[in-house]
C-alpha cells in the first residue's frame, strides 16, 4: 500500500516510524508460554517420588482440577461465553469412557477419545442453538446450567447408564497402562494426569495465539465489531466450545479411572461446574496461568475440607460426616477474590507487573 499517510496529530509518528515501535519482542508470547509450561512440567515430574503418598493423591486431584479449569477457561475466559454447566462435558467424558470400559471392555484411552468427541459434539449442538438465538451473559449461563442438570436427570433415570448407581471400574490384576490401572499409590497416575494436563495446557496456549484464537478474542471484546471486520463468528465460537468441552471431558474420563467410580452426582452435579468456575476465577479468568494457580489452591483446599469432614478436630465435631463444606469455602473464597482481586490472582499480578 502506497500513497498518503496521516502524520502528526496523535504523536510524532509518520511515514518512517519503523524504529523502536516495530522491533520484534525477543520471544513471541506463544513460545515463551510454551517454554514456561515445559519447565513447569519438568519440575513436576519428580514430585510423586518426593511427596508422601497422601500428598501424592492431592497432587493428582490438583491436576484433575487443572484439566477442568483449562477446559472451562478456553470457553469462558478466552471466549467470554460464561458456562455454568461444564459438568455436562465432564460427565459426558466420564460416562462415555466408563460405559465403554464396563460394558464393552474398551480401553479408557479410547474411551477418553470417544468422550472428547461426544462432549465436543454435544457442545457444538447446544452452542449452535444458544448462539443462533443470541443467548448472552446470564441467559447463556443459565442455559448451560439447565442443560447440565437435564443430563444429570436423564442419566439418573436411564437404564443403560445404571440410573443413580453409576459405574464402577472393574478391577484388574496388577497394573496396565492400556487400562489406566495401577496400584493405588503408584506415581503412574500422577504422570498420566500430568501428561494430559500438559497437553491441555499446550493446546490452550496454541489455540490462544492461533488465527482462530485471535478471532475468538475479538468476538469476546466486541462481537459486532468483529463480525463487521469479517470474522466468521459462529464458526469460531463453535470451535471454541468444542475444544473447551473436549478438554473438560478428558478430566472426567481420567477422574473415573483414578477414583474407579462414577455416578450422576459426581459427574453431572452442579458442584463440578462450580469447581471449574471457582478454580479459574480465583486463578485469573482468561489468563493462561490462572487455571494453574487456581487448581493448586482449590485442589489443595478441597482436600483439606475432605479431611476435615472425615476426621474433624474435637472442637469441630459437628462437621463429622457432613458434606458441602468445600463448596461453602469456595463461595467465601470467590466473594473475597471478586471483591479484592477482580481479575483473579494471575490477572491482578499481571496488571501490577505492567505498571
Amino acid at each position, binding site marked *: *500500500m502506497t500513497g498518503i*499517510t496521516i502524520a502528526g496529530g496523535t504523536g510524532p509518528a509518520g511515514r518512517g516510524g519503523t524504529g523502536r515501535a516495530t522491533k520484534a519482542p525477543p520471544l513471541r508470547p506463544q513460545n515463551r508460554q510454551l517454554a514456561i509450561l515445559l519447565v513447569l512440567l519438568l519440575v513436576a515430574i519428580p514430585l510423586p517420588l518426593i511427596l508422601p503418598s497422601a500428598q501424592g493423591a492431592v497432587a493428582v486431584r490438583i491436576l484433575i482440577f487443572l484439566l477442568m479449569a483449562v477446559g472451562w477457561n478456553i470457553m469462558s475466559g478466552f471466549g467470554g461465553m460464561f458456562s455454568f454447566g461444564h459438568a455436562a462435558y465432564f460427565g459426558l467424558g466420564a460416562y462415555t469412557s466408563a460405559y465403554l470400559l464396563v460394558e464393552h471392555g474398551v480401553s479408557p484411552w479410547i474411551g477418553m477419545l470417544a468422550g472428547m468427541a461426544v462432549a465436543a459434539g454435544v457442545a457444538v449442538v447446544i452452542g449452535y442453538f444458544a448462539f443462533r438465538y443470541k443467548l448472552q451473559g446470564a441467559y447463556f449461563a443459565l442455559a448451560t446450567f439447565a442443560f447440565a442438570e437435564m443430563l444429570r436427570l436423564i442419566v439418573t433415570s436411564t437404564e443403560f447408564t445404571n440410573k443413580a448407581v453409576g459405574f464402577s471400574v472393574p478391577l484388574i490384576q496388577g497394573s496396565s497402562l492400556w487400562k489406566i490401572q495401577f496400584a493405588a499409590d503408584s506415581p503412574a497416575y500422577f504422570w498420566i494426569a500430568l501428561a494430559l494436563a500438559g497437553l491441555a495446557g499446550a493446546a490452550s496456549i496454541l489455540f490462544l495465539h492461533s488465527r482462530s484464537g485471535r478471532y475468538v478474542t475479538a468476538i469476546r471484546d*466486541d462481537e459486532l465489531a468483529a463480525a463487521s471486520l469479517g470474522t466468521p463468528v459462529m464458526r469460531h465460537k463453535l470451535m471454541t466450545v468444542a475444544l473447551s468441552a473436549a478438554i473438560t471431558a478428558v478430566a472426567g474420563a481420567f477422574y473415573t479411572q483414578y477414583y474407579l467410580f462414577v455416578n450422576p452426582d459426581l459427574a453431572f452435579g452442579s458442584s463440578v461446574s462450580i469447581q471449574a468456575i471457582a478454580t479459574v476465577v480465583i486463578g485469573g479468568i482468561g489468563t493462561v496461568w490462572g487455571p494453574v494457580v487456581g487448581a493448586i489452591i482449590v485442589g489443595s483446599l478441597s482436600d483439606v475440607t475432605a479431611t476435615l469432614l472425615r476426621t474433624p478436630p474435637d472442637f469441630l465435631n459437628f462437621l463429622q460426616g457432613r458434606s458441602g463444606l468445600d463448596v461453602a469455602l469456595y463461595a467465601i473464597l470467590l466473594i473475597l477474590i471478586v471483591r479484592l482481586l477482580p481479575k483473579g490472582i494471575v490477572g491482578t499480578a499481571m496488571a501490577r507487573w505492567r505498571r
Partner: protein
Amino acid sequence: MTILNVTGVGKDFRGLRALSEVEFEVGQGEILGIIGPNGAGKTTLFNVICGALAPDTGRVLFAGRDVTGRSPDRIARAGMVRTFQLMRPFGSMSVLENVSLAAQHERQPARRLRERSLEVVERVGLGQWAHRPATELPTAGLKRLELARALAMRPKVLLLDEVLAGLVPAEREPVLDLLADLREQDGTTLLFIEHIMAAVMRLSDRVLVLDQGRVLAAGSAEEVTSDPRVIEAYLGEEPAGAEG
C-alpha cells in the same frame, strides 16, 4: 458501473418507521456523501447495507449479487466494510493486533501479516501507537483505528460513519486527504455519513439526503444544499455548517 444498488429498503423498529423506500445507486469509485438530521436513519441504512440488520422490505445488491440479509461477516469478507460512529476497539488488544485481526482474512505468513498491518497502522498515522493497548488511544486515535481496521480488509466499498466527528479541524485535513487518496490509489468506493458540510462539499461526487427514513434529495453537493426541502428538513439550520 454500479457497485452498490439499494432498492425499496424499509425497516421498522416496533412500529417506528426507521427507513422507507430507500433507493439509490453508487458507481464504482464514486464518493457518496450521506447527510440528514439526527434520527434520519443514516446509521440504520449502513446497518442494513452491511448486514447488521435485516431490512423488512427491499434489496441490497453488491457487485451485482443480492446480499440482503446475509451475515455481516460474509458481507465484510466480500469487500463491503463499515466503520462505527461510536468507536468499537477490541479492548484487550494492542493497536497493531486490532488491525491484524482485520488483515488476517487473507491467509498469509505471520510475518507478512505483521508487515501489512504495520503499513496500515502507519498509513493512518498511528505508527507510534502500534504496540500500545487500543484503549489508551484518545478519541482521534480511536477514529483512526476504526479507519485502519477497515482499510486492512482492502475494501471495495467503504462505509464511514462520521469518521471526522470528534476531530479538531487540524486533524480532519489529513483524514480527508487519505480518503481522497483511497479512491485515487486503491479505487475504493466510499459512502460516508457526515455532519461537517465542508467535508461533504469537498469530497463527495454526489450527496444523498435522508430525512425521517426517506431519501429527501440526491445530487451534487451544490444542488442538494440549495434545495429548499433540504433546508426545511434542517429546520432552518444552515446546512453548510459553520464548523467546517
